[in-house]
């Protein structure tokens, strides 16, 4: 194995799990996440010189995010007529938030509540929460990945937490009322 490949494996590949998790939460689909992570890793390898000893995790996740945005734009352009079955099946893995109570009751058994609520958050809220709470990145790293000023990261994080908390309270209180 050549030296460049070796350095790439040491500095970047340890963050493949994080890249995959982030891609899953961004795309909310395992197929799309596969494509995004594969494309992102290859792009990272091609432009490995740009990393220059900086934060490998934040760098890889930035590329994941860019790949996701590009792919999402392409899908949007292509799928003016979406294929509902295929898409819904995919989305059902992580998305919920449909108001139909029966569907909700079924999904509640299948998916852990908070995970479902997180998946239903707006993308810009979801991603900062995932980066902070699940990937345990600090504000600086989140700002680097999302290409936002730190102040915006802070306010988005606060709004995301408030939104999740509100939904969580609605959900749990709803269950309590149901028991009475």
């Amino acid at each position, binding site marked *: 194995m050549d030296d460049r490949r070796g350095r790439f494996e040491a500095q970047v590949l340890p963050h493949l799990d994080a890249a995959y998790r982030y891609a899953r939460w961004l795309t909310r689909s395992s197929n799309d996440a596969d494509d995004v992570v594969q494309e992102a890793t290859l792009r990272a390898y091609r432009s490995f010189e740009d990393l*220059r000893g900086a934060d490998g995790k934040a760098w890889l996740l930035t590329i994941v995010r860019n790949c996701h945005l590009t792919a999402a734009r392409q899908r949007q352009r292509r799928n003016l007529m979406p294929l509902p079955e295929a898409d819904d099946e995919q989305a059902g893995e992580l998305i919920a938030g449909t108001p139909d109570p029966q569907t909700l009751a079924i999904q509640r058994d299948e998916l*852990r509540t*908070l995970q479902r609520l997180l998946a239903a958050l707006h993308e810009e809220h979801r991603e900062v929460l995932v980066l902070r*709470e699940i990937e345990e990145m*600090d504000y600086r790293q989140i700002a*680097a990945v999302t290409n936002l000023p730190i102040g915006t990261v802070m306010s988005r994080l606060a709004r995301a937490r408030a939104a999740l908390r509100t939904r969580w309270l609605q959900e749990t209180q709803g269950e309590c009322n149901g028991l009475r």
Partner: protein
Amino acid sequence: MGCAESLQLQAYFDGEVDPAAAGAIERHLETCVECRALLQDLHALRTLLREQAVPIGIPADLRGRIMASLDEESRTAVAPRGRPSAPLRRSRPFWIGVISGVGGGALAAALALLVLAPMLKGSLVTSLVADHTRSLMSSHLIDVVSTDQHTVKPWFAGRVELSPAVADFAPQGYRLLGGRVDEVQHSNAAVVVYQHGKHVINVFSWVIGRGGLPQDVTRNGYHLAFWQDGNLAYCAVSDTGWPELHELVGLLQGIK
């Protein structure tokens, strides 16, 4: 409790405040029921998220596919005629052959300048963007905090071998925050820091070297505006829009 306080509490919860500020927040928590409740909620949500969000790792088959694509990529990169997208800089630069064949020192120097000058400019942009982001991310944004040009300008004397243009443009919307010393291409640079709205603008200045300055450029979402005054090179870096950045450049160029 105001919004600003809840942001502060959140920063405390996330471990993003310095010890002094943490002490102040802890004292406030002793008396404020509302903030204590908010902090508890933050803890509860974090615990739930970390427990409930599936700790998925990358599936083994996907990892295998990725490794295979890297193998493929490595092979094409080493091969003399790789695909256009493969990194080409691993192969021997063509001009080495040209130079060794001709053996002309002058030609070598001329070619080296042609080849190196754009590379130097590229690395200049990269290092300025890195300096700018690092300054935003660390507490090393400002060494001397002052909105008074008569404090900031003398502060640079004795620290750097140059005296940059400094003025407070608060009336025009560009507040002087202070200055710091940074490094640009291995020499000391004076950095004057301005605030425009929510944006920070770093104005780098250094004694100009050989090779000239790059054109204005956008890199990683940051705009970089370059100009020269005598033997001093200037670069203003920010995530503001171009018009806002150029307005400050105009103001700085107007200082006499």
